């Protein structure tokens, strides 16, 4: 009798789990992970949109869009093998990146260094180094996202050079970027420098810039111009004031992004900010 009741209970749980998940990423989970997703959704709370657990919030008709978005993140993390505590920690970091309870950073938004539509509501600022391998992957991906990707019209991206001293030739790379900005060709230069990351050499910079259509003589003069160096130092000092310690460091609407540094994760958080701004 007792084992029969247990079997009925287990069968109910197995049938109910997919229905209770309530987000596409959760519904796509294989059966063996659904129970773990249900456990996470039963225990965790979204940081906005609803004051209950995910399970209760998802039962509302209709659930708040932010709840659906965060539930999807929970299930993606379950699929990646994370436990409830790790997921809770990640959601906490996401909340800090979105809600920004502290003072907002003061960042110079130089239009010469902007990518994306000027009227896009969400502002992404990235402090990056020309010789940082992580930046060479993330920055072009973010540029694609705001110009032709899912963040087009939603976010604009501003690059702030932050040369890391321990990277050889980081200053030369930063100077080339600032010089290109002064010639109105900032982003082509940045993308070119990152695309040629493995073959970077300071003595090739002028030739590469000429290949992008920049006047070689003017570019070389700007590289040696103290004003170019002063602008690069000012950008780095601004980063230090904003407590930047690593590259890439992102700020979303002036709030430091401390969540996962994968382009998919950044896009998801920016889309959440866009929904809030609407």
């Amino acid at each position, binding site marked *: 009798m007792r084992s029969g009741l247990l079997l009925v209970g287990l069968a109910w749980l197995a049938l109910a789990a997919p229905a209770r998940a309530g987000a596409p990423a959760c519904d796509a989970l294989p059966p063996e992970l659904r129970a773990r997703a249900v456990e996470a959704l039963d225990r965790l709370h979204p940081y906005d949109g609803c004051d209950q657990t995910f399970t209760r919030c998802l039962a509302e008709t209709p659930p708040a869009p932010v709840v659906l978005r965060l539930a999807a993140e929970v299930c993606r993390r379950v699929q990646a093998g994370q436990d409830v505590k790790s997921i809770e920690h990640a959601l906490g970091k996401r909340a800090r990146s979105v809600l920004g309870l502290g003072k907002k950073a003061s960042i110079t938004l130089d239009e010469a260094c902007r990518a994306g539509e000027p009227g896009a509501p969400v502002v992404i600022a990235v402090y990056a*180094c020309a010789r*940082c*391998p*992580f*930046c060479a*992957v*993330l920055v072009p991906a973010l540029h694609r996202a705001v110009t032709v990707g899912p963040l087009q019209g939603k976010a604009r991206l501003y690059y702030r050079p932050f*040369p*890391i*001293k*321990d*990277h050889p030739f*980081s*200053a030369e790379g*930063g100077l080339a970027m600032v010089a290109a900005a002064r010639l109105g060709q900032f982003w082509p230069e940045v993308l070119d420098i990152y695309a040629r990351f493995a073959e970077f050499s300071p003595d090739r910079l002028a030739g590469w810039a000429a290949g992008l259509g920049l006047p070689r003589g003017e570019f070389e003069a700007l590289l040696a111009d103290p004003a170019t*160096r002063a602008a*690069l*130092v000012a950008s*780095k*000092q601004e980063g*230090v*004031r904003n407590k930047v*310690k*690593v*590259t*890439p*460091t992102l700020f979303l609407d002036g709030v430091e992004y401390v969540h996962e*540094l994968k382009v998919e994760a950044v896009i998801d958080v920016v889309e959440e900010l866009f929904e809030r701004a609407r």
Partner: protein
Amino acid sequence: MALVRRIPGSRSLPGWPLAALRDACLVAALASGLGLAVNALRPGGLPLLAEKEYEILVPCSEVQGEADALEPDHPALREARTLLLDARSAEEFQAWHAPGATHLPYDYLEPVSPGALKRVLQSGAARVVVIGDGADPDSGEQLARELAGKGIRHVGYVRGGAAALRQAGAAGRAP
């Protein structure tokens, strides 16, 4: 030191190193086989060959250490075994500097040269105190953190920089 100790009085076995090697190979082969079998049987086992190239991406940082913030009237500034460094520009250093201070300008783009680092290391100072411009960010604090990150111990900086030090009248010690 011999890994295998022979029992005193026993006859030597000329083949024992080979036997030990054979046993070691056998144990390694069995352990490897067991590991491969467990990996093959468990769900989500690791691929023997990477399907795509691993991307190990970690944020890049400058090596910085901890530096103490010292008030301009801190007694350490007058101690004989304190090395005072002035991180400001050459013009600022020429205009005024604390008696006995050594000029080591801080550069936001270039690291401290190995030569300058060697001179600090060879100074024999018990403590290094950096005097900066007192701006935000303070060049003294930045240089102090960089030196600490490069292994210099007991590094501090003057809170408020040269202006605060001059105002406090605590202008270091005699050169």
